[in-house]
């Protein structure tokens, strides 16, 4: 099975997220990036499918943030080809609609790839103006199913996808390829690859570049302001030594009738 995997970078929530001078976007100079978690799972799922059924994995990414780090890691993990889509704007990441258009073009044009399955993370925590995964399916004119926890290969040209539902339930769905699947989680957590492999990949991997036509950016949405939420007014914060806090909490639990 030939699989295309889309990977993105998102702002790392461990680091402080500063707002830029315009007050309408994150300050990209201050933001640290890491791979979008669900895209990491999409890559893992692709590698698992390749391992069980053969084929190839092509990783596609738009050149924004420190995407090279992610791409070398993908190469080290076993991706066969890496395609980078050039993108000029350093300050503003591509919006989902724009990204979908660019990626669709790149994936359609990889002639010797002819991806039967496109895997992309079901969501990313910085998605505001749309959601990439289903939009990509529309642009590619392929069927879509999202919020998927695990994909099993099926009989010729089909896969079984497990769509997550509330209450820890899952719908077992049959998908006829070609299709786009939005991955929430792979069959197993993303594999670890030792740093020495990543460094080796940095020396030996060649990225392919795929220019795409500039996409329509007018979305009919204007961001007026981006900001941090006010510090919580709701929680009463308890301070002091751990024993003081524990005693106070025990009191509260008693007051509320949780303990005798």
């Amino acid at each position: 099975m030939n699989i295309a995997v889309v990977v993105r970078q998102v702002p790392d929530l461990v680091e402080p997220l500063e707002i830029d001078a315009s007050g309408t976007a994150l300050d990209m100079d201050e933001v640290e990036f890491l791979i979008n978690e669900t895209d990491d799972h999409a890559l893992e799922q692709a590698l698992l499918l390749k391992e069980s059924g053969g084929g190839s994995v092509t990783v596609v990414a738009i050149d924004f943030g420190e995407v090279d780090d992610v791409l070398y890691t993908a190469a080290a993990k076993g991706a066969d080809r890496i395609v980078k889509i050039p993108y000029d704007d350093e300050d503003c990441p591509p919006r989902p609609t724009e990204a979908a258009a660019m990626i669709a073009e790149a994936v359609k044009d990889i002639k010797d790839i002819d991806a039967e399955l496109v895997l992309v993370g079901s969501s990313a925590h910085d998605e505001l103006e749309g959601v990439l995964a289903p939009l990509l399916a529309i642009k590619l004119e392929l069927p879509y199913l999202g919020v998927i926890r695990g994909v099993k290969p099926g009989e010729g040209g089909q896969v079984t996808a497990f769509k997550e539902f509330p209450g820890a339930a899952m719908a077992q769905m049959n998908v006829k390829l070609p299709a786009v699947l939005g991955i929430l989680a792979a069959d197993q957590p993303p594999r670890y690859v030792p740093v020495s492999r990543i460094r080796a990949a940095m020396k030996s991997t060649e990225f392919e570049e795929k220019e795409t036509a500039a996409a329509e950016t007018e979305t009919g949405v204007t961001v007026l302001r981006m900001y941090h939420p006010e510090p919580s007014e709701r929680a009463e914060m308890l301070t002091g030594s751990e024993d003081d806090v524990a005693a106070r909490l025990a009191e509260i639990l008693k007051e509320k009738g949780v303990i005798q």
Partner: protein
Amino acid sequence: MTTLQTDPGMEFLAQRVDGDPAFGCIQCGTCAASCPLGAAMEYPPRQLILQARSGNLDKILSSASLWMCVGCHTCSSRCPRGIELADDLWPALRDRAMQEGIQPPAELQETFQNIFKYGNSLGESARKRLDWAKELDVPLRDLSKEPTAVEVLWLVCDYPSYYPRNQVVTRDFARVLTALGVRWGVLGNKEKAVGDCDRLYGEEGLFEMLVENNKKLFDKYQFEKIVTLDAHSYRALEHFYPRYGAEYPVEHYTSYLADRLDLLKPLLTKPVKATVTYHDNCCIGRRADIFDQPRMLLEAIPGVKLVEMARNRENALCCGGGGGGMWLDGHIVEHGGQRLSDQRVRQAAEVGAEVLAVSCPLELSRFEDSTKVAGLENKLLVRDIIELLAESMDLGEKEKQ
């Protein structure tokens, strides 16, 4: 049929473990018998060499016990053939396992990823490296902001920088150094992990990367020597960094301060009345023979009565934290091992100690947790030597809390 020459296990031993020594193993079993977790391991140290020689490299690489060594160095220290098991054989096997796609335990993966991404094992933002110094009452030289020549480049390291319990010790050391009139500086937010623990756990590539980056970093500054509180970092800087061409004069704080006892002693004015026992940590103890200096420091404190545990000096029982053990208690316990620190605190109580003195940052929280488990909370206090020195200098933070 594979001959000895073509067996992948033998080839591996020949290539990775300094060639000959591993071939010289006589299978005496001293290592396995000395290993504090040996009884719980499917393949204790002796077996690793036996299996590699017998064409069973695959078995040991996929075993759970591969991840149970905590790097205490007892095996290496006692091996009659001088084989460097803890610091070369185990890491090499772990590296090989990961190269073959074998997944290390999840907690360990996360630690490696944290170091790779954030430059510290705790996954904290690099920008918070100096948070420990926010309310420091002595002046701090942040060389990354204002480079200036210093006597001592104090490498604070991960736990002392980020972990709340350790930050108390870190601030005390700042006070002690200042009181001694030492011209010291830190690297501020530019400081990154030294990497001893990830090297022990097999991430050779990550270690190399850290050495390269740290060399570039250190070479920017002017200092006479590096001093660190972190025993593991001391070990890596002293022993392994030179292998990569990164050689710097480095001292662990215990030997640094012991050398300056004549300046330090007059400042130790306040008595600290306590029966204290010192836990020899594996990195400066067994590996570096720094046994006397910590004791000299403790004995210089008025009021301290020093007692020895039955297992002391080169026979000290490891706390179980080194080499990744910090993150693998779960894995170890799941496979029949135990938290060594739980045993160790009981050994301290047995000799009537009121205070368990340590000199490695991993030990503080491990032993404190263990006192709770062993029912010794408030009966056995755990203190870094620095805290006791600072207390005697009337600078100590812990007692004032």
